[in-house]
């Protein structure tokens, strides 16, 4: 709050209290730092499909394992193959990934898999992953897509 002071010579000077300003700035900074951390934890940036009149629903899946499928080559996304990774981890071969998922399912039978595949990939790339999951007896499968608000 600005206050008006009169100095020795009879003039007036403005006094500015910066404490609330600093408080708000720190609050904003901490908020943005925390939010940016939360949004990048397991969802890598993937160009998900945006269906017309999307029926995709946001719901919290407990005990979920997110598998990200990204094209190997940005120039030939559909024909260049795909790389698969669990969450934000490094990409792995399909058989290695399948073994890891099987081990995780042994520890937690209620585990559900969410596939986040780039929309430019060929169906065969995603189908190979789905076959690996079927071989490991992982029946329940969720596929990520944009919701209507996210279009």
């Amino acid at each position, binding site marked *: 709050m600005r206050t008006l002071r009169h100095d020795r010579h009879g003039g007036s000077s403005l006094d500015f209290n910066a404490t609330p300003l*600093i408080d708000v700035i720190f609050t904003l*900074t901490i908020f943005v730092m925390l939010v940016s951390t939360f949004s990048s934890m397991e969802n890598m940036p993937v160009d998900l499909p945006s*269906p*017309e009149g999307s029926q995709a629903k946001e719901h919290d899946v407990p005990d979920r394992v997110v598998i990200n499928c990204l094209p190997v080559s940005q120039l030939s996304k559909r024909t260049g193959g795909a790389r698969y990774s669990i969450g934000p981890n490094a990409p792995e071969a399909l058989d290695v990934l399948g073994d890891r998922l099987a081990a995780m399912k042994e520890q937690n039978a209620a585990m559900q898999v969410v596939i986040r595949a780039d929309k430019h990939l060929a169906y065969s790339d995603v189908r190979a992953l789905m076959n690996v999951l079927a071989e490991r007896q992982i029946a329940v499968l969720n596929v990520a897509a944009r919701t209507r608000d996210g279009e």
Partner: protein
Amino acid sequence: MRAHTARRFTTEQLAQGVQRIRHRRKHKPHRSAIRLNIAPMIDMTFLLLVFFLVTTRFARSEGMLSSKMPQDRGQVGVPLPISPIVVRIKQVGEGVDDFAITLDNVDAFPATFTQLAQVLSEIQSRPGFDKETPVVIIPDEDVWWDHVVNAWNAALRAECRNIAFGAE
């Protein structure tokens, strides 16, 4: 009442007294004021704030569709009734819009996935079909994943409750 007696000072005493007063003023304990210059702190805070505002990426809203596993190499994972609705998707070119949708035993060729949803709704109203009738989506190997998800979404829009992926 005491009589007030004026005390007289000599010139020398007066001079000494003045000197003592000046001395006390000179060596008066100086109270040091701690001053904090907060301008650099505000600068750093604004820099941090701008940095995080620019680098923060807010995730776009995404949801999930649920499904069953594809049948592979003739191994039937899901027992099918006699007449499921089979939707085939073929990639006829390299472009994103170069695809064709066909339905087995149905004389309909929807050009878009919205039309596919309308066709599926119309089929459900025929005798022998309802919302529980399985819908099997069989895409070609080279079809864009985007088209596969669109077909799946079209089946959901038509309120089909039994959707599965198939294989050739």
